[in-house]
């Protein structure tokens, strides 16, 4: 309780930065969702998060109310990245995402690192998906850095959160 009381003024002073909020939002002057759509189409790399070293060359945006659905592809990569933004009074907030546009070698390496975990090795069956996890999400589970979610959709759903730099499984989840 005492900690909470101490934290409140600190937050107002800006001493604590919320990494998640900072990276998830983009302040845009326009309130129009349609204008936001055209902004994303004009500068996709500014609002989207392509895999490091690649750029999107095929972006489509669909607007539904305050929701903005973006699908983005890179001709050099298999798979597709999908983003769901919300227009919150002119602020573009990334609500959810599914990033599967990855080089094949990255997918295979992520899968092999995941398989080095005993729990994963014992329970992995069915088909596997490799999805990129953005730093703002990773911060909640490990560190604010890009990680990879390797998930097996079989008789059990098992997933490993993989740090490719450190070549380690940082978290394991079983559904």
């Amino acid at each position: 309780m005492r900690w909470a009381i101490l934290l409140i003024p600190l937050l107002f002073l800006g001493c604590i930065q919320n990494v998640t909020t900072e990276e998830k939002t983009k302040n845009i002057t326009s309130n129009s969702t349609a204008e936001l759509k055209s902004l994303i189409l004009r500068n996709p790399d500014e609002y989207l998060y392509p895999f490091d070293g690649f750029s999107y060359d095929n972006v489509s945006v669909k607007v539904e109310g305050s929701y903005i659905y973006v699908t983005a592809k890179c001709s050099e990569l298999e798979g597709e990245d999908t983003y769901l933004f919300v227009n919150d009074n002119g602020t573009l907030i990334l609500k959810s995402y599914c990033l599967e546009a990855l080089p094949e070698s990255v997918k295979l390496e992520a899968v092999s690192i995941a398989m080095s975990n005993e729990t994963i090795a014992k329970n992995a069956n069915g088909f596997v998906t490799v999805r990129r996890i953005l730093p703002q999400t990773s911060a909640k589970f490990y560190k604010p850095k890009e990680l990879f979610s390797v998930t097996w959709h079989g008789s059990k759903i098992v997933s490993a959160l993989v740090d490719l730099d450190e070549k380690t499984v940082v978290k394991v989840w079983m559904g």
Partner: protein
Amino acid sequence: MVRKFLTFVKSFLIGDTMKRLIPLLLVLLLPMAGVVEIVKDAKISYAVPIPPPTPLVDFKNLTKLVILPNYKNLRLKPGECKSFTVKIKNPTDKDVLITPKVVIRPYSDYVVDESWISFDRTSFTLKAKQEAEITVTVKVPSDAEKGFYYCEIAFTNETFPTPTPYEMPRYINTMHLSVEVWVPPSVKITPRFISDTVEAGKTYKYTIKIKNTASKTFHLKPEYTEPEYIGDFENYLSKDNVRIEAPSTVPPNSEVKVKVKVNVPATAKGPLRGTIKLNIDDPGLDEWMQRVEINLNVFTRPTEPFVKTLKIENASKLTIKVSSDFMGIPIIAGKGYTEGDFDVKIASPNGVISVKPKTIERLVVTTGNKYLPPWEETEGIYKVVSVSKTKIYTIENPENGIWRIEVMPKNCFGFSIEVEVE
């Protein structure tokens, strides 16, 4: 009378009488038990009162400081250096002399050498109810071996009083330090996971690429090993079924290929697992990092088609729906999903007929993340979780008699047949 006897027995067993009699009984009985020598040497004293045990350590007088953190783990490469701050709080009413030092437990396999660690403050007095910070710097020598190193850091000289003088001193105000020394690998291995759907009795070839990014040559000696963990109903590939061909070295800045030939036994069924250990002498690669896991799913194609017969009597329409389900066939994300397929043959009482089917592809799509890990924030985004193909054959005014439907699966583990007669 009985009560008096019982009272006597009770007082005899638990009273002083028993204590006095025990040594006497020992003197009388032990020679009979063949331990005369021992008894002769022993000095027996009678009725020595045993004093109540006194506490060995007076915990109330210990000066316990608060050390934050009391555990630290660092991951450093040989030659790397890292510092961290330790906060020491003195909640007691007396001043305490702080003299940080490294304490090594001799039973640890890898111990942090004292020379690795330095402190920005080596001796100072921490006043009562005050707190202070010490910066601890860990420098790993460039020739340090890979491994997990451990030590304690004691901040005062005070130790727990111990009953025996030869024990190692146990310092009161300590923190634990663990240093993982790691070496970045120079060799890259792809893939490290071979996943495939295979047919029993067939041979499959796979290639593993070994890329050396360093300017020195590494040696490799791949070997196949049966899996370490096998579930109750799991199967594995035996050594006889796997043949590996590889060069013995990986020259500097080059890539070599390890060729793996897997003979799937004709009797194999279900999942087949195994591991290839590459045994590369790259110090950056741990044993587990140079394993290639084999995970095959055996699909045994039936030799004969499945047959369904039905009797038609005065029907105006016969509709046959055959549907596949791809669940269970492993696929890698990004390559798209694979729908199962099958061959269907329909025979009327007069012979096989040719009917062009209507094809329906069925996708199961989710939008939530109920069945996904919490780090996949995919709420509101479509994800295909299964796909199946349905072929619909419609025959108008089918002939009376016995009809025969034959279904031969091509790349699916199962299918469903639905027959509708109108």
